[in-house]
């Protein structure tokens, strides 16, 4: 393996990394802080605490995959890098959930879009939820710090045609569009961000904070599932964890007990509430798992006259916020418009169908272009979000009912996306919906989309952004943690991931997670070092 790879080099230099599937006997380990999860939140936390000289153990349920494993192959990557082998869905099966399950978490498989939390969102939090410390001015230095740490900057290379079509359509219709900031260094513009960056250009947790933590003597267990936080009187005493076997999904039977002064949960907006519920931690107002948000996503696909090759090039480089805050922060639901990459397995899984029709649809993949709308949920009383609860085997599941308020936004988004695609010269457009045909004009599309039934399963919906479930707030009656991610009831527990967002973000959330985790970890480091 190339010694230019920072992970291979670090492992060779003696990083303290344990593949839990190789453990043959139960063991107990101890550190100042145990961090559960290695994604945007966990990685940031571990690096900051370790640099302060605290001893840190990172726990990751997924496995450590790095450059040697990233071969631009969809099938192996979806099976190994994503939650439930890319089969995760909401409780009724109506919304597909894309979420990482590997060292680096979703930052290992995201499409690199790097947005600050919109000012509208931060102002809403500070004005309505008692989170005045999170106003845009006070957060700005934290965003800037993380933009530097993760090499985030607007993408200067010309967008691929898939993204350029969104720009062209917006320009024709007089809609705003912008270039997306990406967290890459020396990007080859290949288009395989979603299956693990093959060139190490992506500056997710895997290339930044995880090596930063390990260089500062943190220990990493991967293939180790956090089962239960165990209390002793009013404090968490230890974490009980199960080693996964070699396939990464079946427990081997070996357990690890992790003791620490402080515990940081950063196991995602589905995993973190799940862990708290399994642990039966104090939750006097029954807030854990409530108000879970997902930026519900719907999509249209267009057949363009020229080859788009939507599988090549930086997957996301252009976005439009024309409709995001159009009706204010808490009016009819707003949505951000972006573009997804289309590789064959992804396209075949997302575009529902069978037989000759499906074969014909997929046969035009090189000419296909797609736009997605990310709905900004959680800002309106008719958008209360979903609920994370436990299945009878203890695994977390998200129930997310789609309200009429959201359905109205979904229909409007289908319309706006189709109009943009036709304005950019599409020959035909199809809503990703079981009842949609291919429409050959905007007039036809408009009439037909207005007739489509807005029903679960018929409209194909997705989420790549899971937020909330352990919401932050000043009042313990309606939140789980305070504005610094500190648990309201348990003194030695913090939560440092997207689960603490009290609404959705209104933008791809990785930078929001990095920045809040950095801010809250600095405070935690001071507290623990002073103690």
């Amino acid at each position: 393996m190339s010694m230019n790879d920072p992970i291979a080099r670090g492992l060779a230099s003696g990083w303290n990394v344990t593949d839990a599937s190789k453990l043959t006997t139960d063991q107990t380990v101890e550190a100042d802080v145990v961090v559960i999860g290695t994604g945007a939140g966990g990685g940031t936390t571990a690096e900051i605490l370790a640099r302060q000289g605290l001893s840190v153990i990172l726990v990751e349920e997924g496995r450590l995959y790095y450059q040697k494993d990233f071969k631009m192959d969809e099938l192996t990557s979806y099976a190994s890098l994503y939650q439930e082998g890319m089969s995760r869905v909401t409780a009724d099966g109506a919304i597909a959930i894309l979420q990482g399950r590997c060292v680096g978490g979703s930052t290992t498989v995201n499409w690199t879009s790097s947005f600050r939390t919109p000012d509208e969102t931060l102002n809403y939090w500070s004005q309505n939820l008692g989170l005045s410390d999170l106003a845009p001015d006070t957060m700005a230095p934290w965003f800037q710090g993380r933009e530097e740490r993760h090499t985030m900057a607007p993408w200067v290379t010309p967008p691929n045609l898939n993204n350029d079509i969104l720009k062209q359509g917006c320009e024709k219709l007089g809609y705003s569009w912008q270039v997306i900031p990406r967290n890459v260094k020396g990007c080859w513009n290949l288009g395989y961000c979603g299956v693990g960056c093959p060139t190490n250009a992506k500056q997710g947790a895997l290339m930044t904070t995880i090596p930063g933590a390990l260089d500062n003597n943190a220990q990493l267990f991967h293939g180790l599932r956090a089962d239960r936080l165990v209390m002793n009187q009013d404090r968490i005493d230890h974490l009980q964890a199960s080693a996964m076997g070699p396939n990464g999904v079946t427990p081997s039977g070996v357990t690890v007990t992790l003791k620490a002064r402080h515990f940081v949960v950063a196991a995602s907006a589905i995993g973190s509430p799940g862990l708290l519920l399994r642990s039966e931690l104090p939750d006097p107002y029954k807030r854990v798992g409530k108000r879970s948000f997902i930026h519900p996503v719907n999509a249209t696909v267009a057949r363009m006259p020229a080859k788009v090759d939507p599988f090549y090039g930086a997957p996301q480089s252009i976005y439009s916020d024309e409709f995001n805050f159009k009706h204010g922060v808490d009016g009819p639901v707003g949505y951000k418009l972006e573009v997804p990459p289309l590789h064959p397995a992804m396209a075949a899984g997302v575009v529902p169908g069978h037989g000759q029709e499906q074969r014909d649809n997929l046969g035009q993949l090189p000419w296909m272009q797609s736009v997605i709308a990310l709905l900004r949920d959680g800002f309106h009383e008719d958008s209360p979000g979903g609920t994370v609860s436990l299945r009878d085997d203890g695994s977390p599941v998200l129930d997310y009912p789609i309200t009429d308020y959201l359905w109205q936004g979904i229909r409007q988004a289908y319309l706006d996306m189709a109009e943009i695609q036709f304005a950019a010269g599409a020959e035909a457009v199809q809503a990703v919906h079981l009842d949609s045909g291919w429409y050959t004009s905007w007039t036809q599309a408009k009439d037909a989309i207005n007739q489509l039934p807005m029903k679960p399963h018929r409209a194909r919906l997705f989420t790549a952004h899971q937020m909330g479930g352990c919401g932050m707030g000043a009042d313990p009656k309606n939140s789980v943690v305070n504005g610094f991610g500190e648990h309201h009831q348990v003194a030695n527990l913090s939560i440092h991931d997207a689960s603490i967002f009290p609404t959705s973000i209104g933008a791809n959330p990785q930078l929001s997670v990095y920045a809040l985790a950095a801010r809250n970890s600095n405070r935690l480091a001071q507290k623990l070092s002073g103690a």
Partner: protein
Amino acid sequence: MTTPSPKYCPEDRPELSRRSFLKTGLGGAMFLSTVSMTAGLTGCATAPAGRVSAVDSRMDASYQFEFLSRDDIALFEALLPAMFAGALPEEPNQRQHAIAGTIERIDQGIVMFGPANQKELRKLFDLLNFAPTRITLARVWSDWPSVSTESAEAFLNRWRDSRIGLLNNGYIALTKISNVAFYGHDAHWHLSGYPGPPAWAVDALPQFHNA
């Protein structure tokens, strides 16, 4: 693919299960788990098929099935010719090879889904393999090995077009796992005009040239 299952969270229980019930209109989870149990009791082959000998099946005997049972394999052997009409090779050996390989990749994919979604798929497959539910819910009258491609196609259309969300969900689950395993496989990339990862990048990257 999941259906509502009993929730662990006691506070939410009455509300959630009532809403889930209304949503599926069929009693959803409870109905499916009854099927799963009945299927087990009546001797449906729900155990993983393991190595299937080439004599009694058209599968590659070197592959070890970890999730799909013999009945599930028969189900997919009946469905895939309809699922991939116009995409499968015409030549009988190649066609059989493509179908068998896709079923193996479906099995590999499901293994990585983990226990919770495996349980949901087990319910779905049992429902389709257990004659009383196959007839009432799928309206497929004969055993899968004797189902024609036309009947399989009609079944897929019925579940896609049904007004019952649970059946739409079953259709999505069947087509999604099959489509990904088929169109995502490098031997079938040509069907979607996907040339694969750029050759220059493959040449330049160390992970493709392990010593």
